[in-house]
């Protein structure tokens, strides 16, 4: 039987209350959202917090809405809501592509976008979605709010920009026109973490790529991405040859490790092949050729 070590349980009533509780209990305290990453780690005693602060009662963190020229997503939005969002389907089908292959419907009923980002697992699918889209994260402390680019949010495996007495409250993604986006993942069995995965958005100006973003999951890519491949594509025509060249750069520059999910060379192969596929699909979507 797997049981976490003992801890004290507190339930926060508001964001300010959660932050006050974090300040009161210091660095031995942790927030718990869906608990679907934290509780498994606590059962294995990989995490041994002394105080858990439950943030499931917090209001005003479950929105998916347009706010100015961005889409704002509250930290407590569950995977299931991301999968079903018509707003995200319209602007960023990459979310539904990714959510369809994250865990299973029961886990998706519980896990949150905030927890996914804060967990900082190198195999977290939403981390590379957010990286591809170059979104930003809104972090709150008792001193106020600050906004961090998602590309600076993940600072290493299981390390994020969120400090001890801080809380992630919102993720924001710029609304872009003439764009398509897509995500593709290879998993050993349904619902498993990625062997490797890739996501991309492509913004077209006629036949030219005006802008592009690439996210790479579970292949040891620095910052979940490959800026060299993005730079290669930006400003040139959207052709299969150039997609292949960019995908080759992802293959060459990522740094996967051999583990129980697969050998290093296979993961590199997947980084290339999946990048190629998502660039194609994102472009087809930008052209309105594919839904």
């Amino acid at each position: 039987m797997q049981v976490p070590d003992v801890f004290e349980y507190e339930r926060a009533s508001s964001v300010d209350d959660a932050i006050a509780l974090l300040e009161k209990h210091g660095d031995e305290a942790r927030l718990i959202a869906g608990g679907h990453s934290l509780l498994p780690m606590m059962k294995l005693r990989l995490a041994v917090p002394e105080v858990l602060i439950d943030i499931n009662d917090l209001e005003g963190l479950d929105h998916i809405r347009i706010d100015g020229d961005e889409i704002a997503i509250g930290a407590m939005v569950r995977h299931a809501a991301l999968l079903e969002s018509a707003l995200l389907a319209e602007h960023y089908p990459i979310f539904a592509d990714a959510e369809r292959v994250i865990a299973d419907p029961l886990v998706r009923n519980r896990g949150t976008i905030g927890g996914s980002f804060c967990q900082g697992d190198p195999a977290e699918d939403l981390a590379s979605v957010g990286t591809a889209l170059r979104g930003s994260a809104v972090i709150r402390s008792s001193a106020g709010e600050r906004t961090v680019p998602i590309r600076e949010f993940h600072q290493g495996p299981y390390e994020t920009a969120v400090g001890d007495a801080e809380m992630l409250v919102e993720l924001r993604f710029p609304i872009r026109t003439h764009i398509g986006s897509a995500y593709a993942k290879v998993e050993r069995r349904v619902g498993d973490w990625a062997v490797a995965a890739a996501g991309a958005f492509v913004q077209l100006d006629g036949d030219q790529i005006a802008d592009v973003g690439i996210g790479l999951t579970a292949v040891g890519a620095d910052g979940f991405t490959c800026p060299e491949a993005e730079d290669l594509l930006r400003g040139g025509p959207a052709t299969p040859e150039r997609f292949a060249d960019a995908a080759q750069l992802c293959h060459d520059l990522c740094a996967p490790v051999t583990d129980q999910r697969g050998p290093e060379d296979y993961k590199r192969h997947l980084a290339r092949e999946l990048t190629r596929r998502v660039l194609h699909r994102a472009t087809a979507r930008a052209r309105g050729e594919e839904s």
Partner: protein
Amino acid sequence: MQVTMTVNGDEVTRDVEPRMLLVHFIRDELGLTGTHWGCDTSNCGTCTLWVDGEAVKSCTVLAAMAGGRDVHTVEGVAQNGELDAVQQGFLEEHGLQCGFCTPGMIMTAKWLLERDPDPDEGTIREAISGNLCRCTGYENIVRAVRWAAEHPAGADEEVSA
């Protein structure tokens, strides 16, 4: 700590450790052993029950987190001794063998049908993809859920049909 929640319509209060998982609260504190406990790692789905109307894996929820919430387990599915449509479907279509996965399957299937009363086979397979069955090969489970979709009034309808 004191935890109070509603389980199958009844309010219950127990004094438990904060680290107690909801599955153990339901089984050991309340004696509702219909909710099964298998992998412990949020993979098998046999511990599935509803918290505030959502089907979740209760081995990965703290009892404390369910405090103040509305929990439904497989024991609350039959009404007045009558099996509901999903349970009847499992009976009609031989949707179980050893029965270990069945409570989780039923709670997930009911959650699906609440949201989508007429799911096709693919939708059913996707919905139960977090519930593992080592016996049936899933074919009869899918048929059982289809049976329930086609007979929303359960056995009553079968008799009058």
